[in-house]
Structure formats: C-alpha cells, structure tokens
C-alpha cells in the first residue's frame, strides 16, 4: 500500500499530512460568512416566512397561510408585471447582445476614430439609472421632447405619447435600458475578440472562409464563453429592472409598464403590505431561479471536470 502511495504522491506532500484540515482559510472566512448569513441567507428565508403573513410593518404578524399567493395569482397587476418582466428579459437577451456584438466587430478593425466611438458608446454606462431615466423622460416628453419635436418638425400631426402610451411605455423604457447596456456588451465582446487566437482565424482564412462564413463558423463559436457571460448578465439585469421604471413612469400608465420589483416596492412600502410584497419577492426569486439554475448547473459541472 505504502509503495503505491509513494508512487502517486505529489511533490512535497507526505501521507501523514494529507488528512489534516487546514483551519486558517476557514478562520478568514468566518467574518464574511457570518455577514453573508445575517444579511443575505437569513433575510431570504425570513421573506419566505413573511409571505405567509399579513404583516403591515407595525402590528402583530398574523399567519395566513397561502392567502397572499391566492390573491397574487388573481391580481391583474401581478400578471401584467410578470409578463412585462418576461418581455424585458426577451428584449434584453437579444437586442443589446446583437447590437453590442456588431459594434465590437466594427470597432475591432482599424477604422479612424474607433477609440472615440468606443468611448461614446461606453459612456452611458457611467451614468446612474436615475440620471438615465430622467434624461430619457425628457427625450420622450410628448410636446417639447427631442423625439416629438423632430416628428412635429417633419410634419407628423399626432406623434405618439411614448411614456404616456400604454402600448409603448414599457418598450420606451426598455429602449433607454438597452442604450445603456449596448456599450457594456460591446466592451465585453471587444475584450473577447482581442483574446481570440489569431492563428485559428488565419487557418480559417487559408481554408477559404471569409465574411459571414468566417464569423458564423469560427469567430462566433470562439466567442461562446463571452456570450454566455453576457446573456447571464442580461438576464440578471432585466430581472433587477426597477430604477428606470420607478423614475420614468412609476409603472404607469395604469400599470402598463410595471415590473415585479416596482410592484413589490409599491405594495410593501407604499401600501404597507409587507406580507403581500414578500409574496411578490418570492415569485421574482422563483422566476430568477428557473432561469439561473440551468446556468449554475452547467458551470458547476464544468468546474467539476477540471
């Protein structure tokens, strides 16, 4: 036995020391872990519990079972917010990713002023959501805003009301969010393109691949890991959507642009329905889980393989 051990033993490792647990890393982890449990894990479970009560923030909590969820599933505002979150998700995965990739491919070549363009596309990212929301609310202003002034200028008689229009409000907000996100996606893809192995692309060229074929079969597959990161970031950002909605429309008109996070905020802190707000939070959590679990599963599986 010991002979086998000696054979398979790595350098500097003695059989006796192998079983000893290294306590130092855990000691260092105690503080962050404690904070993590107190501030993240604890409140998460507490929210689950809260969603089963009718707490108003002041009075004695009353356990009411699944009544909040029963009401939630019949609540038209919930259906609208949920659907809007899904719409946001779909647009957010596709549009900024495509535009950002396109921009990255353009600016990866040596065109004049590429640096300047890159900076201008990236610039919105340094603005906070509240600032972006206010700027775009002005742009969309129906009578004197930038867009409608242009439309009036070219002779459109009744331009849309944008944020005041129930069909357009949500997409108008998403457009503002996309404007911010595109620069982010572009930077990530640019970094990805810089790291591509030039020899692979050269090999493709030698084999006669050009233009679309080169992109479709060589560059895009090589960018795969970057794309996965971008999609995950987009999913997380779209589920977090709150600031822009809160600033630009407060979910209006009549709930047409509401999303779950804003709906939860209004119920919990405006209507003082902590229990109901918690139930909405749980649903948002579930929605995130359904989307994130496959990704986590994949990541963990690949990590195991290393």
């Amino acid at each position, binding site marked *: 036995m010991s002979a086998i051990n000696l054979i398979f033993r790595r350098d500097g490792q003695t059989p006796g020391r192998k079983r000893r647990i290294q306590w130092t890393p855990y000691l260092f982890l105690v503080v962050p872990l404690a904070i993590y449990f107190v501030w993240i894990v604890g409140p998460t479970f507490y929210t689950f519990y809260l969603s089963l009560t009718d707490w108003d923030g*002041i009075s004695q909590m009353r356990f009411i079972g699944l009544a909040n969820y029963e009401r939630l599933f019949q609540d038209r505002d919930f259906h609208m917010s949920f659907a809007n979150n899904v719409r946001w998700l779909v647009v957010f995965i596709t549009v900024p990713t495509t535009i950002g990739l396109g921009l990255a491919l353009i600016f990866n070549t040596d065109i004049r002023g590429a640096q300047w363009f890159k900076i201008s596309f990236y610039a919105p990212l340094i603005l906070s959501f509240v600032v972006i929301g206010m700027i775009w609310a002005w742009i969309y202003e*129906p009578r004197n805003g930038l867009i409608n002034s242009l439309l009036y200028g070219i002779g459109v008689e009744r331009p849309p009301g*944008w944020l005041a229009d129930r069909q357009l409000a949500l997409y108008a907000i998403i457009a503002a969010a996309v404007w911010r996100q595109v620069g982010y996606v572009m930077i990530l893809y640019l970094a990805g393109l810089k790291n591509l192995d030039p020899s692979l692309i050269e090999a493709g060229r030698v084999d006669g691949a050009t233009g679309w074929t080169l992109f479709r079969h060589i560059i895009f597959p090589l960018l795969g890991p970057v794309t996965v990161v971008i999609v995950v970031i987009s999913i997380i950002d779209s589920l977090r959507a709150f600031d822009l909605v809160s600033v630009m429309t407060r979910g*209006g008109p009549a709930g047409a642009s509401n999303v779950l996070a804003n709906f939860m905020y209004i119920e919990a802190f405006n209507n003082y329905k902590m229990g109901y707000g918690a139930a909405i939070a749980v649903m948002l959590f579930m929605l995130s889980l359904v989307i994130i679990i496959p990704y986590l599963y994949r990541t963990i599986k690949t990590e195991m393989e290393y």
Partner: protein
Amino acid sequence: MTIRRIALLLTVASLLIGGALLAQDDVIRYASNASDEGARELDEARVAAFEAANPDRIVEHSVTDHEAFKQAIRAFLVADPAPDVLTWFAGNRMNFFVDRGLAADLTPLYEREGWYDVYAPGFIELATVDGAQYFVPTDYYWWALYFRPSVMEQAGVQPPETWDELLAACDALRAQDIIPITIGTRAPWTAAAWFDFLNMRINGPEFHRSLMLLEESYTDERVVAVFDYWRQLYEHDCFLENSAAYEWQDALDFMNRGEAAMYLMGGFITDSVPDEIEDDYDFVQFPIIDPDVPIGIDAPTDGFFMAANASNPEGGMDLLAWFGSREAQELAAEMLGRLPTRTDVDLSGFTEAQQKGIALVQSADYVLQFYDRDTTPEMAEAGLNAFAEFIADPMNADVQAILESLEADRVRIAAEQAAEE
C-alpha cells in the same frame, strides 16, 4: 455648496453630540417632513422660536424628505425611543396609527391649553378618536380650480361656475389653441382630485365620505355616473394630452408659460409659480353640477402628534403646545400662507387669496381631506390606479370592468379591516 454642506453636517453632528451629552429630559426629539424649501424655513423658524423661549431645552430636529417620511414614520414609531413629536396628516392616515396604539392621548394637552374653546370644532372633530384627541391640526390648504385670468381673456371666457360653463370654456379655449385644463398624472393623485370633486358635486359629499370609508359600493350606479361626467370633459377635449408623461409640476409649466388656462390643484400650487406672474393666478370653487347637492370641498389638514412611547412626553407636550399656539399659527400663515385652524387668529393681515380661500372652505357644507387621506392607503392605491387606467383611454375604457375590480378590492380591504378589529 460643498462648504455649506460640510458646515451643515458639522452643525448637525455637534447638535447630536451636544444633545447626547445633556441630560435626557432636556432633549425633545422632533421628526419632521418639512423638506420643501418654504416649509423647511417655517419649520426651522418655529423650532428656533421654541428654543429661544425655553433656553434650558434642546430640540433634536430631524427633517426627512416629504415622500420618504411617509414610509420612514413607521420605523420611527416602533423605534425605542420613538421621536417625541412628529409631523403628520389628519384623517385616515392619522387614525391608522391611533388604531394601532402608536399615538399618545393628547386630551390633557387640549384641556391644559384650553384648545376646546379656540380651535374650530370641525378640526377638533378631525383630531378625535373615541372621544379623545390624538392630533394637533395646525394648518390646512384648499383645493380649487385655478386659472390664469390673462389666458382666459384671450379666449373671452369667464371662470366657469357651472358644468355647462366649464364645457363651453373648454371649447372656446381649444378654438384659440390653448390647453383648457392642464394635468400631470404620472403620479395619479391629481386625477383623484377630479374624482373627489365630481363625486361630491354629482352625488353629494355624504355619499363621497361613505365611499371613502368603504361603506358604499364602487359598482353603485352613482359612481358610474361620475365617470360619465368625467368622459364628457374628454369629449370636449378639456385636458392636456398624454398627461401620464408629466409630474404635476411639469404640467404646471404649460400654465406658467401661458399655454394652458386652468388646473384643479391645492393651494400649494402658488409655491411653484414664478413670483412675477403670481398675480395672474386666481381660483374659483369647483363648478356646480347639481345645485340641489350640498357643497363639499377638499381641504387637507396637516399637524403634529406625539408617539405613544415618546421618551420625553412632558417636553413633547410643551413643544406641541407651542406648535398649536396662536403665535405659531400666525407665523405659518405669514410665511407660507397656510390657513390657521384656530378661530382666534387675526385674519386682517392675510392676503386676498388667503381670505378668499378661507371663505371658500367656510362656505362649504362639508370639508373633506383628499382621496388618499380619506380612504385607507391600500384602497387609495387601487383607486388611483383605476383612475389612471380610465384617463389613459377615457373614450374606450371599460368603466364597468374597472369599477368591478375596484369593488373587489374594497370588499377585501373592508374584510381585512374588520378582521383586524
């Protein structure tokens, strides 16, 4: 700017430290929502006057943003120690805390200060729950149909006194390319004012009050009638288009620029009007629809109360006694044009607008607060959403469906209230 901020921070910090060093009894903790510029000046002047008159006392004065205060107050009240004195709103919002035992009984204060004789009875009534007083109503403002005489003149219209005159005014103003009535409904409480007044003018203030107390049904045909009248205004193109894109102040800009003629708004509207055109603002009471119906008006009342677990109840009572005094109310009227709730305040120095506002409120048969102060917070939220849905597409909105959904909310909220009691 930054230096001023630092100076302010240092002042606040030294006040806090100073306050902590002194004996607990001498410190009165006062939480205020007076974050707007004018209101804050008044607030600070009131506190300074109290401290000048009571050199041995220190008021720990903290100001929270007006909207944020509505949420923060819940944390304040259950904190230990809670602030001694807090600003708040009369009506349902106050009663909510009284019902939960978070407000101190101020009956001894009313007796000590002899307020039963000097406060208008309607306001004492507003402060009373089950025969005891919990609130010091100090000032109020009125809601009215504001207009710009110069803009109305361009279209040759008089301020409307009846429903037909209002509709005719809309037509005449539109003919001159003027927006008849401006409104910003991004936060839809401005629309609730229209619901309040239409309901009071058509069905009477008593019915409106019962509806606010969740005692009448939202599917009642009388409520349906309110929306029929409301729709008439849209048929006559009375309102600013795409109102949901504007905050109430944004919509006021159209009026300040002379592009719009009228606005249904509270007395605080003039705080946002540039001084040089303030003389060109006037108001009338909401037009009469049915002359046989008693006249109701919204006149929201603000004031103060003391937390039930205040650490310094004697100090709190003394500060409240000052806030509710004649001198303090005169100060508020002078600085901000707020109307006093006491009957012994000298009105001779008041501006014409204030005198007119007082007459408006006193001539009304019923004085209510406002939609979101008269009904429960949750019902108010549901109602505001319903109004927003109606005005998003007033011509095609399914009023029946909107009201049925509101009625379902009312039944549920009323049942929950009953369960709590």
